[in-house]
């Protein structure tokens, strides 16, 4: 009788351990912050790329308008891929694209824009990467769709045709 209980207990423990390990190994252990939306945009002051003028977020993002804040850098390869899509999005007059140049050299960033075009209405120059953290970003590229001072949607990674189409539908 005792032997039977021992066998059942051992099998049960083995099954539990197997299930726990199987489930744990299935899940990715890379943490990605939740894409929180409907958050107010952060309050910050930053320097503009071309004029070097210091500006507050409230001056940059006016109410009753759609904005796409795009974090980019000349050294970021996926930014190059999404850039033509941003250029295409500039044709839509309902949205303004604001760039946040992340930890870049000004010369390289200028060359990047000269080569691929400038879709940005304004560019924030974030030399130390501090402004990107204020936005809760942790890499490039990332984009935030903003309306009335609220982040409607956050896109981690490069935009693709489907996502740009989604943006078009959201701002309709």
């Amino acid at each position, binding site marked *: 009788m005792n032997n039977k209980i021992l066998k059942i207990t051992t099998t049960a423990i083995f099954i539990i351990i197997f299930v726990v390990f199987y489930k744990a190994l299935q899940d990715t*252990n*890379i*943490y990605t*912050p*939740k894409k929180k939306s409907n958050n107010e945009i952060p309050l910050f002051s930053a320097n503009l790329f071309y004029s070097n003028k210091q500006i507050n977020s409230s001056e940059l993002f006016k109410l009753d308008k759609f904005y796409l804040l795009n974090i980019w850098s000349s050294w970021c390869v996926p930014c190059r891929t999404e850039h033509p899509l941003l250029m295409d999005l500039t044709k839509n007059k309902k949205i303004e694209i604001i760039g946040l140049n992340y*930890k870049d050299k000004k010369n390289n960033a200028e060359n990047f824009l000269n080569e691929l075009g400038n879709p940005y209405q304004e560019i924030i120059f974030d030399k*130390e*990467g*501090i402004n*990107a*953290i*204020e*936005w*809760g970003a*942790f*890499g490039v590229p990332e984009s935030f769709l903003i309306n009335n001072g609220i982040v409607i949607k956050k896109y981690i990674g490069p935009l693709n045709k489907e996502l740009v189409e989604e943006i078009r539908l959201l701002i309709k």
Partner: protein
Amino acid sequence: MKILKLFFIIFFIFSFNHLGANTDDMKIKITKNLRCLICQGQSVYDSDSEFANSMKVLVDKKLNEGFSEKQIYDFFKEKYGEWILYDPELNKNTYILWLLPILIFLIGGAIVVKNFKIRK
């Protein structure tokens, strides 16, 4: 009088050094308790990624602005979630994490005591 002046100068230099050291210690303490999102498994203090370096600059900036340790943790928690902290605070989402080891210890202790009494 000259000796007194010299004494004051030395005293102030040491005071400022002490203040600087305090800020540095706090910066190290905070960055060691923040996780790097790029090189996961490393703290911001240990990591040399672009993201971690920016976090270090921002922690320094916030300390200079007079933010407390808790305010800095709250700031990063709001941006990236509780996961960013190595030492999560006790709240409704983490109470199992905090209480389970104590509970296991108590149950284990009770079993040991019970067995010990039976043997006696």
